[in-house]
């Protein structure tokens, strides 16, 4: 077992899958010569050559569309967006081409491709570059959406995404790339799509979360543990299809739920989680479910305001205490 960064875990996944299947290639802005805007594709150009590691102009709609066409003719493209904020320019290819192709061709065209890149806020990137898009993307039938929060899950989910015959959205995090975690060296790491993981076990409340917020949830769990409050941390890992069983199993045990996400409140991923809970766990609830999310404003640039707007461990702790009637 070795401890590596989230960045290196993604890099290993790309390398291993490109070795495994020569139809796999990566394309995006700065992925080749510059070795990736966040160095996720480091060394790949040297190893696999420019046919399989392709730099593009700053044309998100264009290269996303090239990816769709490549997938239609049997390749397995990985499209890197420098950030998901830039992917808005390509959203027609993602939503109207990639997500619909299998359906509208009557099953003639699979769409074995991956769209990946950092999602959500980093630090002081301001309103246009600090957005979490998972609820937009998970809204679309035809897409699968994963949001790994640890190096292990990043490697395992990216490999599953590359092997899947449907378009899979991989939501990474600029603030996650340098985080470290254990990833086994000499065995294949595969995390199946659609499977949540109980990252921490407790009996008093459930924190249900995904992506970057897994780290905040684990911090909250540590601090709560010192006060004698033990929480389940349910990491969804895949947002669509969502692992409803994992959610309801935990809530039936703890009777109290906090749903933590990076994005905004209205129509957020948490709203869907709460719906599953009220539907399946109504008689198990001892308190209304509390959601923790970004403030309902464009992300402020000012450091203090940005901190106030973002969800974090302290806000998750307050929410846990609220569902436990401790404040």
């Amino acid at each position, binding site marked *: 077992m070795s401890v590596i960064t989230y960045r290196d875990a993604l890099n290993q996944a790309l390398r291993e899958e490109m070795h495994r299947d020569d139809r796999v290639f990566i394309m995006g802005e700065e992925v080749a010569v510059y070795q990736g805007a966040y160095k996720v594709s480091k060394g790949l150009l040297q190893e696999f050559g420019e046919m399989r590691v392709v730099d593009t102009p700053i044309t998100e709609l264009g290269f996303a569309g090239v990816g769709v066409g490549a997938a239609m003719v049997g390749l397995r493209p990985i499209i890197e967006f420098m950030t998901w904020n830039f992917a808005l320019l390509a959203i027609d290819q993602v939503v109207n081409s990639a997500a619909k192709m299998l359906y509208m061709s009557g099953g003639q065209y699979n769409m074995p491709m991956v769209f990946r890149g950092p999602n959500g806020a980093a630090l002081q990137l301001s309103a246009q570059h600090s957005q979490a898009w998972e609820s937009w993307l998970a809204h679309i039938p035809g897409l699968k959406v994963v949001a790994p929060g640890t190096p292990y899950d990043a490697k395992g989910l990216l490999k599953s995404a590359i092997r899947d015959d449907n378009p899979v959205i991989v939501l990474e995090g600029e603030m996650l790339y340098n985080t470290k975690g254990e990833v086994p060296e000499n065995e294949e790491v595969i995390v199946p799509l659609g499977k949540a993981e109980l990252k921490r076990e407790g009996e008093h409340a459930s924190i249900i979360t995904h992506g970057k917020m897994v780290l905040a949830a684990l911090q909250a769990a540590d601090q709560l543990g010192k006060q004698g409050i033990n929480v389940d941390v349910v990491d969804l890992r895949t947002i669509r299809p969502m692992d409803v069983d994992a959610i309801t199993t935990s809530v039936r045990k703890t*009777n109290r739920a906090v749903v933590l996400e990076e994005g905004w409140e209205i129509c957020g991923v948490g709203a869907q989680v709460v719906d599953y809970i009220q539907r399946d766990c*109504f*008689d*198990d*609830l*001892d*308190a209304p479910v509390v959601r923790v999310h970004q403030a309902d404003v464009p992300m402020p640039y000012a450091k203090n305001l940005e901190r106030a707007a973002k969800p974090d461990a302290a806000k998750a702790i307050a929410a846990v205490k609220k569902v436990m*009637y401790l404040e």
Partner: protein
Amino acid sequence: MATKVVMEALSPTMEEGRLVKWLKNEGDQIKNGETLAEVETDKAIMELVARGEGVLRKRLLNENDAAPVGQLIAVIAPPDENIDALVSSAGSAAAAPAAPAAPAAPAAASAGATQEKVASGAPPAPPPARPAAPPAPSAAPSGNGGGRMRSSPLARRMASENGLDLQGVQGSGPGGRIIKRDIEAAVASGSAKQQPTAGRFVPAGEDYRDAPLTQIRKTIARRLSESIGPIPTFYLTAEFDMERVAEMRAAMAAMGDEFKVSFNDIVLKAVATALAQHPEVNAHWLGDKIRYFNRVHLGMAVAIEDGLITPVIFDADQKRMSEISRESRELAKRARERKLKPEEYTGSTFSVSNLGMFGIDQFTAIINPPEVGILAVGALEEKPVVVDGALAHRKRMRVTMSCDHRVVDGALGARFLQTLRRLIENPLMLVY
């Protein structure tokens, strides 16, 4: 328009009835609801009432003859209406009772459907509604705005699983909301659960709770049934000291005739009180689940001329000794006269059978399904017993409880008898 009078199902299990006596003659003017005849069912003699108005034009069944349920036995109609067709169809029906003629209601249908003209028939009434509770207590948690009690869904589920009445629980959540910890505290202290026995106040709520069968209960039920027939019964016998009951009864009788109660009345009262404290025994086995009753309806076996019937003292745990005494006397009398109504001998949740007056020391009674227990009460006897190391003579009485092992395990039945012993050997507890 003519009203057909048919033999009605006057007890839940009645298939045919014998006409004991006509109370109206042909040509009599009949009002809706008037009694037409007395009919003997399989259990009692019941009144058959008119479901329409007019003249009793034709009686089609002789006294002492029997007719299957659904058969036309009389016609009520205006004086000038031609009823020949009706009457002749009845004739053919009587000849072939298996195929009731006319568009009459199907046999064995509930009585409500048997007289077409009437909108509101009278099927056997359900057990009487519980006595009206006094208006809501003023002790409602003050924080509960608008008088509505707030509770989390989980708290409600836990309360129902524990047979707890939420009214007795103080909520500690926002706005007085009752939450998990409040139920846990109430269960731990046992305070709220005892509330229903504390007097005549009957809280609103379910009369019973159904418990799904757990795997262990399913296995116990299956294995024990294989061993001993459809109801795997076992028996628990205990001998109670009756000195204090005898003293109490004598003291009460000395106060005047209106305070006289029988030993059996005291036993009934004690059993009802013990059942309220052991709802696990106050239950029905329903095959796929166990129904635990929150009300105690005590059946008392009464020997009658050609058999046995078990009239019911409803809400027996809520009744004073004097009420139980009066009611049991009245029910026994009417049972012997075969005047019990069906709703008076159905719906019991536990039964008592007493053969003490026949000098039987002890016996085992047969469970009346779907009940899960019956208590057999033997004779009160003066016996030599050892008290505090010395031989003494004391009044003693033996009881034997038959338990349906699918629901009642040995220790549970034993605990019930423990409670019963405590009550009977310390009868002042019955007025506590």
